[in-house]
């Protein structure tokens, strides 16, 4: 953090960081889902770049962009695994919050208040681009995915997760998570902006990336835990794509 920052501001962002990172607080659903998201992300990166997860700092030398990084729930683990991480978020508050927390943890992460299109204009490129739980919030998904494609180095990896559009996802993600469980603030999601896996993979293909994998993230209310599924993509799902070389 720069020294010119107002101490009252810092205190505010420290409080926000505490909220973002409280496993039982407002962002509980993200914390609960994080282990399976990380299992998927780490396995895909390890496979694509021939890394061994039991090694110390297995992602050393990889440049990684986390678009829509929020409080840094994915950026921090990626930095711990040795990646050179840039966390981008359009909300200034998130960037300050994430920076304060990374500082507390002793992690070096380059957090920037910016958007995918701006990073393209700056000519930035990455080995790995993460766009987790973000595509359902952007105004023009196809334009966003095209920007992502330009941010991936040839031979690099693009991971994108979102929520399916069907009656079940409406019941679970909006009625369940926002209205009944109050896990998410009402109005967090707009159901009509949800995208089906086929639609997403078509758009990713049109952006010039090659789809290589897709899986579901499934919540089991009996065991109160998330798992990765090969077949059940009915609510939360994730896709992996690579950018062809040359």
């Amino acid at each position, binding site marked *: 953090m720069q020294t010119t920052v107002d101490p009252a501001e810092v205190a505010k962002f420290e409080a926000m960081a505490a909220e973002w990172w409280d*496993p039982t607080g407002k962002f509980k659903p993200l*914390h609960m889902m*994080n*282990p399976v998201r*990380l*299992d998927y992300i*780490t396995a895909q990166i390890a496979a694509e770049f021939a890394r061994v*997860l*039991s*090694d*110390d700092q297995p992602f050393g030398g990889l440049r990684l962009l986390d678009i829509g990084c929020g409080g840094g729930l994915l950026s*921090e*683990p*990626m*930095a*711990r*695994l040795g990646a050179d991480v840039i966390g981008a978020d359009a909300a200034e508050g998130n960037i300050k919050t994430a920076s304060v927390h990374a500082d*507390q*943890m*002793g992690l070096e992460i380059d957090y920037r208040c910016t958007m995918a299109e701006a990073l393209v204009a700056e000519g930035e490129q990455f080995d790995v681009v993460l766009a987790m739980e973000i595509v359902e919030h952007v105004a023009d998904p196809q334009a966003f995915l095209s920007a992502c494609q330009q941010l991936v180095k040839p031979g690099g990896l693009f991971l994108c997760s979102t929520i399916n559009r069907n009656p079940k996802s409406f019941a679970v993600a909006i009625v369940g998570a926002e209205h009944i469980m109050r896990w998410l603030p009402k109005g967090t999601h707009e159901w009509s902006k949800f995208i089906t896996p086929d639609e997403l993979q078509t758009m990713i293909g049109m952006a010039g990336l090659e789809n290589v994998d897709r899986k579901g993230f499934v919540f089991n209310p009996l065991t109160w835990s998330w798992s990765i599924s090969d077949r059940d993509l009915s609510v939360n799902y994730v896709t992996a794509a690579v950018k062809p070389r040359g």
Partner: protein
Amino acid sequence: MKLDSDILIVGGGLNGPALALALGDTGFNVTVVDALPRGARGEEAFDGRGYALALASQRLLKAIGVWSRVGADAQPLLDIRISDGRAGEGPGPFVLEFDHAEIDEGPMGYMVEDRFLSRALLEAVEAHPKVTLIDGDTVVAQDIGPASVTLVLGSGRTLTGRMVVGCDGRRSGTCERAGIGRTGHDYGQTSLVCAIDHELPHGGVAHQFFMPPGPLAILPLPGNQSSIVWTESHTEAAHIHALDDEGYLAELRPRFGSFLGEISLAGKRFTYPLNLTVANEFIADRLALVGDAAHGMHPIAGQGLNAGLKDVGALAEVLTEAKRRGEDYGRIDVLERYQQWRRFDVAQMVAATEAANRLFSNDNPLLRTARDIGLGLVNSVPGLRRGFIREAAGLTGDLPRLLQGRQI
């Protein structure tokens, strides 16, 4: 912010070093703080203490590279015979027998002397490049910060790490300093522990006699030697412990009869007052409790060390998986996975041990008949008996990978 270690372990008994080795093997930097000076553990002479290691525990020791240092000194448990008895009468008419030949995994477990196991663990710790041992120093203060833990030692030295694990026994200071309460009660009984030399070979058979005052276990050690764990009321135990060796043996002899021939004492005599003490939480922010620090149990089934090693296997697996995901492994939501994994198992064990002790430690003729019939019933149904054998061998439940003999 450079930390001294990833994980600080308080306690250098058995679980502490075992956990340090398991975590060191998966890449964590670990420091173990042991209150005892190095020379005080794993003494040359046999002191009479031994452990009945379940097969699953032996597999864990193998997986962390300790078994090769202790296996040659271990006695395989080939058969466990459980019977109801009264002093001077010998075993009751219905004997429950568990023979390892009924399961595929080999012996049900091993008897290992404390001196060999302690020494093997500490030697492995000293040889491990990722593990540091600080001996003869105690923790006097612990400070849990948002991203790290600081321990202050009696010597004035401070240590920092991502988290602390208390393997410091049933009076765990780590637990107390964290403000975690404990629940428990006194059983009104004391265990007398000693080793005996005997004339006749034991054939690798362990015996458990359920006597009215409490159980008597005879556990085979290598050669013509056995470890005895013998439970009496506090007053009776104090009386027996105060006797000279000859008087002590005179009390012991009629309790298990003459099937091992002449007996004499080998090593020291110990007493352990029995109480149940379970921590109200096994975890807090950047802190976990393992073994007796989490759950000190009645040793009726010899499950204390075995339960501790299950904790070791579960915690090492949870922390390693979290580290490989890049998670902040000291966070309470990561540690919650360890607590959830172990809590149910521990509760079940406490309940079963309590029930077994209540059922067997009394002279009520009605219960005596009921348990004689019960033992006979279990014995006559092979499927049921195999279930008990697998339970005794520690092969049931959701086993951590190290206890299946696999690497994490």
